[in-house]
Structure formats: structure tokens, C-alpha cells
């Protein structure tokens, strides 16, 4: 079923963690998904179902036990210069200012200082962080740090952006502001996005497609097309009948998996 337009391909990806005491945990089981160039795919699933593992496999921080992940037909982990990763933990470097953090990947890529400066200034401006460039991470609020993490992953204009519950720890108001900013940023240059979340409403509000994962071992339970038009106004999405239908359809599926995960004794 692979078509040539598929930018990113997860091909029967399985990951088994062996524990030292001889046991093993299957974190991902035959995860297969084709993602088109410029698509915004959100992935929901109960905690512990292998979502973070999936992203770590994309960037090669871990190796799949079997299967492969391809970008334009070649292994994804060999194309790190084209992947922006926003990790689940806040990973701004505390010894760098906000600006220096955003410029980190650009420094690595050898971009000239003046050019770096221009790029970071523009990005920070776009997410409302102008004026905070010279602050260190501990001098920023959680919402500001998270925007910093995202902007850093975008700074070098990667073709693929993968995000692991980037808005997880934020309060509801901050979260919706950041979601809207992310959508606006994304609409400007339509990169391919894999966005992990445990929040179903967030998954529907942001995605072109929502992937629902099963409780461990993580498999794809269903893939749901979201027919909401773009640009989306997140503040008024809840009144949209399309949003409500998607929510009620997906809610039951996810609820099954969450209770299955809880039954596993988590």
C-alpha cells in the first residue's frame, strides 16, 4: 500500500525491551503507518503504550527490534539533520540563554552568527517571546520554556517535526494559546508533523489524522480522518459538529484502551 507520495513510513515497527532479570516488555507491536508530506498526524494512547519509544526509534536513540522507519525511502535515523524533535521533558539547556538554545542546532550546522541571530529573532518573535531572548531557562515560565523547545526544533527548518506531549504539563489557558501558535506556525510552511498526546481533544483539534494506540503492547487500534477545515480557530472548535462527532467516536475507543492499561496494574 506504499505510495510514492509517502514521506514517512513506519513499516511493521516492533520494539521489545529486554530487562536484566530475563523478562521482556513489548513496547510496540507491528506499528505500520504511512504519512504524507506536509501531513499533521496526532497519536493518542494510554500512558505506557510506547508513544515515546516510537519517537526515540525515529531518531535512532533506540533501534527497533524489527521493522523500519523510512523518510523518503531511507532510514530516518540517518537523516537527523532533517528531523526536529521536541522531547517529552523540557530540555532547554540551562547554561544557554533562550536565544542561544534556539540557535544551538544552527551553530552545529555551521550557520554564520548574523544569520543565526536573524533566524532566532524571527522565530522568537513569532511565538511572542521577543524581549526574553537573553533569559536563562530558570528565568522563564513553563509555557515560555515549552515554546523555546518547539522553536529550537523548528529553527533549522526540518522536513519532519516530531513532538512528544509538548503541552502535557501546561495549564489549560497556556495550552490552547500554544496549540494555536503551533497550528499557525505549521500552516506557514506545512512541514510533516508527528504529534504525540494523551489528550484526545488536543489530538482532534490539531491533527489531519488521529492515530489511536492500544494499551501495551502498543499497536494501532484505529486511524481517524479529521475533516475540520483549516485554518482552525481552537477557541471555538468545541461547537463544531465535526469536532463533536470525532470526539464521541474516538472517546469510546480510547476509553477501552485506557481501562485496559489500568487493568494491567498501572
Amino acid at each position: 500500500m506504499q505510495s510514492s507520495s509517502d514521506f514517512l513510513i513506519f513499516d511493521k515497527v516492533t520494539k521489545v525491551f529486554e530487562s536484566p532479570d530475563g523478562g521482556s516488555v513489548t513496547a510496540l507491536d507491528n506499528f505500520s503507518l504511512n504519512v504524507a508530506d506536509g501531513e499533521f498526524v496526532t497519536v493518542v494512547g494510554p500512558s505506557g503504550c510506547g508513544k515515546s519509544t516510537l519517537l526515540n526509534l525515529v531518531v535512532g536513540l533506540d533501534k527497533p527490534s524489527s521493522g523500519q522507519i523510512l523518510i523518503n525511502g531511507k532510514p530516518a535515523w540517518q537523516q537527523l539533520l532533517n528531523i526536529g524533535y521536541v522531547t517529552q521533558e523540557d530540555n532547554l539547556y540551562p547554561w544557554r540563554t533562550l536565544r542561544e538554545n534556539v540557535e544551538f542546532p544552527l551553530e552545529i550546522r555551521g550557520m554564520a552568527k548574523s544569520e543565526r541571530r536573524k533566524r532566532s529573532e524571527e522565530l522568537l518573535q513569532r511565538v511572542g517571546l521577543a524581549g526574553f531572548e537573553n533569559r536563562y531557562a530558570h528565568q522563564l515560565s513553563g509555557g515560555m520554556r515549552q515554546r523555546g523547545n518547539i522553536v529550537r526544533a523548528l529553527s533549522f527548518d526540518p522536513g519532519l517535526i516530531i513532538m512528544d506531549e509538548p503541552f502535557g504539563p501546561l495549564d489549560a489557558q497556556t495550552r490552547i494559546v500554544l496549540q494555536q501558535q503551533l497550528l499557525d506556525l505549521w500552516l506557514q510552511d506545512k512541514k510533516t508533523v508527528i504529534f504525540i498526546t494523551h489528550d484526545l481533544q488536543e489530538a482532534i483539534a490539531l491533527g489531519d489524522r488521529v492515530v489511536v494506540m492500544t494499551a501495551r503492547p502498543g499497536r494501532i487500534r484505529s486511524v481517524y480522518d479529521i475533516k475540520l477545515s483549516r485554518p482552525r480557530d481552537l477557541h471555538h472548535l468545541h461547537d463544531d459538529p465535526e469536532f463533536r462527532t470525532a470526539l464521541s467516536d474516538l472517546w469510546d475507543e480510547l476509553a477501552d484502551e485506557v481501562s485496559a492499561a489500568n487493568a494491567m496494574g498501572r
Partner: protein
Amino acid sequence: MLDAGKSEQQIKSAAKGKRAFDTTLIWQLAILVVLLGSWEILSGRLFDSFWVSKPSLIIGYIYNWFVNGDFFRHLNATMTEIIVGYSIGAALGLALGLPIGRMEKTAKILDPFLLALNGIPRVALAPLFVIWFGIGITPKIVLVFTLVFFVVFYNSYAGVRSVERRYVDLAWVMGARSFSLFTKVILPAAMPYIILGLKLSIPYAVIGAIIGEFIASSEGLGHKIQLETSVYNTTGTMGGIVVLMILVVFLNSLLAWIERRALAWRPPSRSGDAGGQGL
């Protein structure tokens, strides 16, 4: 957004802290005056000032020593030993500690040897160094070196090992490889430990130089102190000790200044600066 709220409040409370009258210094001065005052008054009354001297005598001694004595010759000798020994010890400690911190296997192999070497009471080696290197400044430099090296080595080694995996992993994903990974992530992340090692080793350097001079020497502050002690001049002994104390405080504040610049990014800590150990 509510973002600016937190920082504004911080700025306000910081400003308030400055405006409020700080009584710490007053208390410190008061304690100093009481201590020195009672020493001055009780010496000669409660205690024989022959044994414990008194502040006025010590100040007078230092003044005389400074103005028409051989103060600078001794200071020069001791400082040379400290600076040369410290520089070599610190440089080598960093040059070995930082890379070995990254080499899991090497670290594991070397561990028992380093532990054993560090277990040697270095001060007990001082007489041996005199036999090997004579009574000039070389044995003192070697002694300072051995003391400083291990402190700097262990701290930079531990610093590199303490760097959080997630920082390194993410840098890797962002494209950083061996050299950039080291200079842009590992080194800055380990910097608090590195600076700590450089700071902790200052008093050790001074101890090394002074002990070395006690054993056999013809000049240096330790030599001078021993000379005065051998003729029961307690005022002279204490004068020398006071000079050493000032020296350590000076070296420590130099390092504290470097620390403030290198670690400007760290959130302010609750505890004050403990500032090395005494002699």
C-alpha cells in the same frame, strides 16, 4: 499570558531585598570586634601574652615585616610554589579527568589505582620529595601538584559523569558530534563541578606549600612561621598565619569571581558561599 507575572514578582522581591536594611554585615563586624577585643583585653590579664600574643602586637609585627623586613621575598617564594604547582595540577587534572569521564571502560580499569593513589596521605610524601628534589622550590611544587591534581581530576571526572543523558541524547539528535558535543554540552554541563574542584583545591595548594616549607626550606611564609616558632615568637607565628589567611581569602575570591562569570546561568542557590576550607 501570565508568563511575565512570575518574573516581575521576582524582580520586585529582589529590589525589595536590596532596599531592606541588611543587618548581616553589622552582626559580622560586631562578632569580629568582640572576638578581637576580648583577645586584646584578656591577653596579659587572663592569659600570658607570651603564649597567645594579641591583635595589636600582631598588626604591629606584620606592619614592620612589611615595611622593613623580608616580607616580599617569602611571599614570592610561597606564591611561586602555589601558582606553579596549582597550575600544573589543575591543567593535568582537567586534561585527564574530562576525557576519562567520557571513557567508561578506561575509567573502570583505572578506578582502583586512582583510589589507591588518592589514599596516600600526600603530606607524608613531603620528606621523600625533599630527598628526591632537594630543598629548593621543586619539592614544594611537586607536593602542591599532587594535592591539587587529584581534587581537580576527581571533580572534573565526576562532573563529566554527572551530565544528564537526555542533554547529550538531544544534542546528538540535533546533529552534535564528538567535538561539538563535548564543547557545547558536556563541558558547560560539567562546569559547576569543574569550578568546585578548582575552588576546593586552593586551600590544599596552600597547605602543600607550607608543609613543604616546614620540612626543609630557606625561604617562604612557612619557613618564616617555623623560624618564629622555633624562637618562641608567638606574635611572629600568628603574623605569618594571618598573612596566609589573607592569601587564601584572596585566592578564593579570585575563583569566586571566575565562578560568577562562568556559572552566571545557574539559578541563585539558597545557601551562601561556603568558600573552601580553612588551613
